[in-house]
């Protein structure tokens, strides 16, 4: 296969990801699912696209999306005053007019993540990861339980700072913690329902989890932007950013560990990886924190895809590898090198695209009414869910929106919504998932 063609394919994927990443609610895995179906369809008609074309294209999509999706996450999600303590530093910088800086620091993290994968992980992975998989595979279930325990008990109270000691202070402090526990419990129940008795029609089963995720994470964000009267201050487009090299080093190592952990273990998502990365660095510096999140996100998505191609491993982790495995199985170390090359190219190009896209988004924010933008985002999300999963999906989305609004209202961790995936899967891996489903009356 022509190397130039592969590079062009990777570039095309990267450019396409720049469009996809700006659309709310559309996850890269939704697009990849559509792409795999298209490739199957073409095969049926006798027209086959060689893997040397679509694999670099997919790589470009994944790497580009992991890097560029930061732009709408930071620039288009503005909290109102009451939510200032619970939003991530990216949004805080946005409210200080430093959204561009936040995007670029996160992008530096993404670039460092590409370097980590291509320069350090890639040469070691074929030797190390097969052993790691052999040792850890029988223990995946308890690792999930331990992660669940950590998510639940590591959230500290956000209130109770003022006033005399006593129950009033305690209850004020526990308001957010209680909401977090309630969110986690309700999400877990919803997860069991979707896993054992999903109302989504069978033909849409592939997108079973989509309405829940959109409801838990995307819709509350749009709704509260619509309802709040927050004004986005004028954004300052910095000419250069200052982050000391050793802080980049710590952020990279911590983000790499968090993202790598999430990429390797099933069901653990990039959000959990980001949480672990942030805690492991013990950092308060917002820029280092953002940087570690950029690394973590890229390593999570791109690393999970890369592990499918590691010679001697062929580990299927993450949606992209799962969708691809029925279409193509890696043949040789050549595939691995091709993916690595595509990653390096896509990482570099998407990093270079970031400032221009961020400036463009800032210009859009200055011209468009922020509430209208949020309403459009909400409309796109609802239409997508409706098309892909029908009325049942919209109903699930509505229920999930109720659950996903709790953290926003009470200032608790949004990560608690991940009970949706973590609890049913941990129960299943431990072997008592069906028993719990039976107790919930889902097996009748």
């Amino acid at each position, binding site marked *: 296969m022509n190397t130039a063609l592969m590079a062009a394919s990777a570039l095309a994927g990267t450019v396409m990801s720049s469009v996809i990443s700006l659309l709310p609610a559309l996850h890269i895995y939704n697009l990849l699912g559509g792409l795999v179906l298209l490739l199957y369809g073409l095969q049926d008609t006798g027209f086959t696209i060689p893997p040397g074309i679509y694999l670099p294209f997919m790589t470009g999509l994944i790497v580009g999306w992991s890097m560029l999706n930061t732009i709408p996450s930071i620039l288009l999600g503005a909290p109102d005053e009451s939510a200032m303590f619970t939003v991530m*530093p990216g949004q805080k910088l946005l409210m200080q007019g430093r959204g561009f800086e936040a995007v670029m620091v996160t992008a530096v993290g993404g670039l460092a993540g590409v370097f980590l994968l291509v320069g350090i992980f890639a040469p070691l992975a074929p030797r190390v990861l097969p052993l790691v998989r052999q040792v850890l595979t029988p223990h995946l279930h308890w690792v999930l339980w331990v992660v669940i325990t950590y998510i639940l008990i590591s959230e500290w109270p956000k209130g109770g700072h003022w006033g005399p000691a006593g129950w009033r202070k305690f209850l004020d*402090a526990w308001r957010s913690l209680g909401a977090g526990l309630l969110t986690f419990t309700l999400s877990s129940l919803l997860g069991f329902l979707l896993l054992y008795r999903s109302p989504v029609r069978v033909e849409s089963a592939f997108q079973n989890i989509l309405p829940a995720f959109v409801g838990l994470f995307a819709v509350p964000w749009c709704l509260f932007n619509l309802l709040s009267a927050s004004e986005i201050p004028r954004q300052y487009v910095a000419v250069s950013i200052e982050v000391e090299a050793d802080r980049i080093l710590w952020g990279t190592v911590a983000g790499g560990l968090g993202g790598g952990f999430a990429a390797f273990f099933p069901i653990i998502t990039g959000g959990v990886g980001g949480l672990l990365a942030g805690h492991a660095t*013990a950092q*308060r510096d917002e820029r280092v*924190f953002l940087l570690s999140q950029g690394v973590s996100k890229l390593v999570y998505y791109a690393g999970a895809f890369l592990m499918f191609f590691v010679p001697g491993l062929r580990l299927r982790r993450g949606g992209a590898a799962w969708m691809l495995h029925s279409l193509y199985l890696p043949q040789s170390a050549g595939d691995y090198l091709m993916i690595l090359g595509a990653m390096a190219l896509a990482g570099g190009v998407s990093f270079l695209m970031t400032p221009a896209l961020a400036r463009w988004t800032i210009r859009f924010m200055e011209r468009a009414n922020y509430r209208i933008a949020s309403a459009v985002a909400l409309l796109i999300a609802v239409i997508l869910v409706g098309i892909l999963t029908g009325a049942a999906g919209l109903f699930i989305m509505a229920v999930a929106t109720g659950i996903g609004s709790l953290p926003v209202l009470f200032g608790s961790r949004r990560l608690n919504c991940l009970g949706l995936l973590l609890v049913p899967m941990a129960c299943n891996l431990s072997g008592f998932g069906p028993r719990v489903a039976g107790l919930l009356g889902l097996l009748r």
Partner: protein
Amino acid sequence: MKGIAHFLTGVTAASFFPWSIEQALDGNPVYFVLGGAFGLLPDTIDFKFYRFFYPHDVYIEPVPSDSHPQPIADRIAEAMATALREQRVIRVKLGTIRLGADRWRQYRLRFDAERREVQVQFGPTVTTGQMPIPGTTPSTPLVARAPLPAPVIQTYDAETTVDILDGPTFGLEPESGERIVLHFLPWHRNWSHSLLVGAFFAALAVLAGAWRAGMVIFVAYAGHLLEDQLGFMGSNLFFPLTRRRFPGAHMMRSGDTLPNFLTVWTCCLLIFWNLYRRTPDPLVSIGFFKFLFYAGVLPLLIMLVIRRLTRRGAPRPPERVDTSKEWSDPLIS
């Protein structure tokens, strides 16, 4: 140490017990979960429960309109005089100064034992991420001084920075009727950080017929206390037999990146090793020290060399010690 380091220490402790792994292989994760939960329990007790019921005698709550920190200094000196006069511990709670949604006025508090005075100085306005807002540092330092009625003995840092969310507490304990012992955050690392309390929880498990769980609980709990003992504040290790905290080894601060990160990584390696040595026919055969060298020492050395190289030519001023990491919320909690 930060929560994740304590939590992983507990999980690591559990991995050393053969029954934890045997049960885990049978689908029962309980020992690992217990290890993690009890590894974090001492701080959970303090930060999620005890601090809200800890009574204070004096609340110093500065208001944003205060243009000078003198009232803060005066009230601290006053509280100290009360402790001396009434010969009892006076607990003083310092409040934060909130200026807006994401804005706080920082102030520093320093007990100068030599001059026998307390000094309070207003600093810049900071964000909730504790980043100073440019241009908000007072051009002429506003320092308030108040004479102390007795010599002070400090058990922690001389200087405390107060800025976001919650403020610190001091216990002012008169000693021998003529001096005051300053206890920083008296509600933290007290009874909850006692080996005997850990033994009590373990004994409950043993009484319930789960002696294996009891062992995991005790070792995880004790691991937390030993890690904390490496820091400055120390812990009241033998409550109820002792009433005061034993001084720490002063080897690290709880918020320091390197020790936290090293602890997390070492725990990951030890857990992996414990699982590896119970794996039948591993793909690669490796000894403990070789494993530790390649997976622990070598990467650390490389990182330290890179760090040194990146810092060369641009020596940084020593970072200010941030005691607020001892009691305030982390960036992402």
